């Protein structure tokens, strides 16, 4: 082809020169997604649940598209399809009709209703509308659970945690019984493999776990021999109902720790279920904390298999420490994932020189400082960041590696450094669902990915290449 094609190598990640005062008002390449996406993801982890967004259809379609590209699985999300009139006069009619249609077509066990910016702003009374709908049908039909998710007040992580909270509030039944062999796990936005591993770990401690949400098979299922209107799998409402009788809840994510309104806090307050608020079990130290909590709850020592895995992980660290030690990383993504990754990097001798999240996180600096050894003075800590800010910091600090979603690819390409893909969304690789990062085993896989990415980068850019370490 004779057409001149601009040489992308000479361009920065945002395709532009870098001098001049950086724009501050506009968001340039956001490092977050909107709240209803988080809620939809949780609803996809409930058995027989169909997510329903109350608002214009574009939001639902976009969110579907985004999730499908990441998980490569069917993601059906209904919408009340507002038109101009509904935006002005309210969406009650559309809501009722939409729910009717969803029930008729999908026969869901539950409808998860999340609002969008539009329906929040016009002030549609969701709870009233749900009640009215149910009254009209004498309570027949599947339950509807509602979560308020105006995107202008938070990010997809907020939507995610809110949806978990609303599910717990809506369905957990009062009980006096405590089932000592039952544990609630409230995970953060992890991969399907991570969720499966959490379940496996609980089994190793001989605990019966309710994981809420559990999209490990709804968003990574087997090939179908018949059509499923709603992907099989997920946490059942019956199991959610029993969560009040669990011995304890483990709530995963640093930002959840002090949250008095979190799902597990509510379970503790209302049902006396002990709450352990922990970080992602990623890296040895954070995993240790997780396993210690599991041991305490289950009254079982660490299973041999896990102890073995821990041993192998330490060995892996030793084998490869030279290739990672002293390196500098940029990390971005959901706040809780970033803190855990920073902890992991710092325990293998990689300095996380940039930690960025698109969410506005209270005490973001303190959260990171609690997990990074040696102070954070030399670390660029960006809350409420976009990719443009992240890129500007990276141009300055020149990290050796980037960890985050596939949205970091343009920057990695510009800086000619490797990107280790983790988090959401990963749109340019296969297998995001299957990537394991939690627990000793997950850490080992992630560690290998990091070490090999650094080696590969070195090989690729060396004059002659090398074939033996």
């Amino acid at each position, binding site marked *: *082809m004779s*057409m001149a094609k*601009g040489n992308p190598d000479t*361009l920065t990640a*945002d*395709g*532009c020169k870098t001098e*001049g*005062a950086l*724009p501050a008002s*506009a*968001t*340039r*390449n*956001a490092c977050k*997604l*909107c709240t209803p996406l988080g809620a939809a993801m949780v609803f996809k982890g409930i058995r*027989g649940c169909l997510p329903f967004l109350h*608002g214009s*259809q*574009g*939001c*639902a379609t*976009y*969110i*579907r*598209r985004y999730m*499908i*590209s990441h998980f490569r*699985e*069917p993601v*059906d*999300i*209904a*919408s009340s*399809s*507002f*038109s*101009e009139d509904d*935006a002005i006069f309210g969406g009650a009619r559309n*809501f009722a009709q939409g729910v009717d*249609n*969803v029930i008729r077509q999908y*026969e869901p*066990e539950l409808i998860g209703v999340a609002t969008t*910016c*539009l329906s929040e702003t*016009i002030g549609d009374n969701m709870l009233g509308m749900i009640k009215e709908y149910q009254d009209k049908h004498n309570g027949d039909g599947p339950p509807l659970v509602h979560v308020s998710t105006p995107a*202008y007040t938070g990010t997809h992580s907020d939507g995610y945690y809110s949806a978990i909270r609303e599910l717990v509030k809506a369905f957990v039944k009062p009980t006096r019984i405590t089932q000592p062999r039952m544990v609630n796990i409230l995970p953060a936005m992890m991969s399907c493999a991570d969720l499966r591993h959490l379940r496996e770990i609980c089994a190793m401690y001989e605990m019966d776990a309710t994981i809420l949400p559990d999209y490990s098979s709804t968003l990574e299922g087997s*090939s*179908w*021999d*018949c*059509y*499923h*209107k*709603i992907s*099989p*799998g997920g946490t059942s409402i019956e199991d959610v109902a029993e969560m009040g009788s669990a011995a304890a809840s483990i709530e995963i994510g640093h930002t959840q720790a002090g949250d008095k309104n979190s799902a597990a806090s509510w379970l503790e307050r209302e049902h006396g279920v002990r709450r352990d608020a922990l970080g992602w079990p990623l890296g040895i130290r954070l995993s240790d904390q997780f396993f210690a909590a599991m041991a305490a709850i289950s009254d079982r020592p660490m299973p041999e298999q896990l102890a073995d895995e821990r041993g192998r992980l330490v060995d892996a660290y030793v084998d490869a420490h030279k290739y990672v030690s002293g390196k500098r990383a940029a990390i971005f993504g959901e706040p809780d994932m970033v803190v855990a990754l920073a902890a992991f990097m710092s325990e293998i001798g990689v300095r996380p020189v940039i930690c960025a999240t698109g969410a506005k996180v209270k005490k973001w600096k303190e959260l990171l400082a609690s997990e990074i050894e040696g102070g954070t003075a030399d670390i660029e800590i960006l809350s409420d960041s976009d990719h443009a800010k992240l890129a500007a910091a990276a141009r300055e600090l020149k990290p050796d590696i980037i960890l985050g979603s596939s949205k970091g690819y*343009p920057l990695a390409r510009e800086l000619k450094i490797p990107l280790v893909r983790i988090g959401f969304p990963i749109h340019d690789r296969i297998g995001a669902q299957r990537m394991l990062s939690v627990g000793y085993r997950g850490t080992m896989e992630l560690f290998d990915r990091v070490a090999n990415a650094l080696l590969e980068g070195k090989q690729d850019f060396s004059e002659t290449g090398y074939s033996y370490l």
Partner: protein
Amino acid sequence: MNSVNTPSSIRVLDDRTAQVWEKGSGKEFVCDKKSAAGSVTQRACAFCGSRVVLYPIADALHIVHGPIGCAVYNWDIRGSLSSGSQLNRNSFSTDLAEKEVIFGGEKKLKASLIELINFYKPKAAFVYSTCIVGLIGDDVEAVCKQVTKETGIQCIQVDSPGFKGTKKSGYQAACEAAYKLVGTGDTSNISKYSINLLGEFNIAGEAWMIRQYFEKIGIEVVSTITGDGRVDDLRRCHGAKLNLVQCSGSMTHLSKLLKDDYDIPMERVSFFGFEDTARAIYTAAEHFGDPELMRRAEELVREEISKYAPKLKQYKKRLKGKKAALYVGGAFKAFSLVLALRALGMKTVLAGTQTGSAEDYEQLKEICDPGTVIVDDSNPLELAKFVLEKDVDLFIGGVKERPIAFKLGVAFCDHNHERKIPLAGFEGMVHFAEEVANSACSPIWQFAPRRQAKALRLPEAEATTPLAREEGGAA
């Protein structure tokens, strides 16, 4: 029961029965309706329509006024290539916060525009208004005027709140916005044999291939408006003598404006498949009525076809008799696909679009074989129903349709804007055949449970594993 063993247990919503039609049924067919609430339509919103049409104008600034989601879900998701500026591949947004939703976002928009313009020095700026902005009533037009005055860079409002309708109303808004640039550039040195290409998005460099065809035979391409587009080209595109419109849905309105105001005739064309590509080239050549031009056009077509036709043969052999379903954005693409599939010896058994017009569907009905199901504004359940009912071998669609096919063990070809393979022109037809064959003839399908059951000739119900029945069971 939530798992479906017979296609008939998926019901088409009452509101939609007239949007599903089978050739030979004699039934009435309805389209151009807004999507039924709760129908899980594959359609996006008006904003999406305008954003995707204007996206390829690479040296313009595109800023989305609204909360973050609308902007971020659009960030560089399209395969439309630019030969220079990559500014369009960014996602700029005013990312409205609660207080702006309450007190208005005009100030933030103005500040954002001014600083982005100063920083990136774009040729022009497009400002998209989303649902919230339509609702809170920001005067985007006024802000655009002010900023244009202050910076000297033309700022253009794209009036496209999502709730205004389907993608189609967004296309209209995009055309109106693009048209604001037209008519301000110098046209004095434009050849008398010159064209604009409208609605060709330069996915994987397709516009570059097509442009070469015309340049080879002596026709100047003034602007490829929506593919590797440039602001300055748009400013002078009214100097072209003919408009070739490919994606009719998106660009018919702009070509109408150019017809009304500048008397530029338009021709609908397609560059998909040998037949359509040749016809498009001849259409342009014929229009100028120069026998030399026509001779060169014929020569080009002959050359290209002799180069690529033999390559097609091997694919044809492998694909003969297979059945295809297609669900695409616009109807014009559907026509071309039906013909191209036929050229490969395949049959289209299901054809649908998100936004076809009555006129489009008439044409689609005509070219389809009897028994073909035609659907308007369909949804995953319906599409699955017909995939099963017609037992298709191949599905052609976009990201949202892919899992429907894959879960059921059906091959898939991405014919949407995300793809990275050029499928247009003569060369593109070979890529298309290869893409289709690579999926449809892959050995992996033997392992797909549904296919396996069939191969063993088990009755469908028995083919359902107990596990699937148990897990899928709702009741």
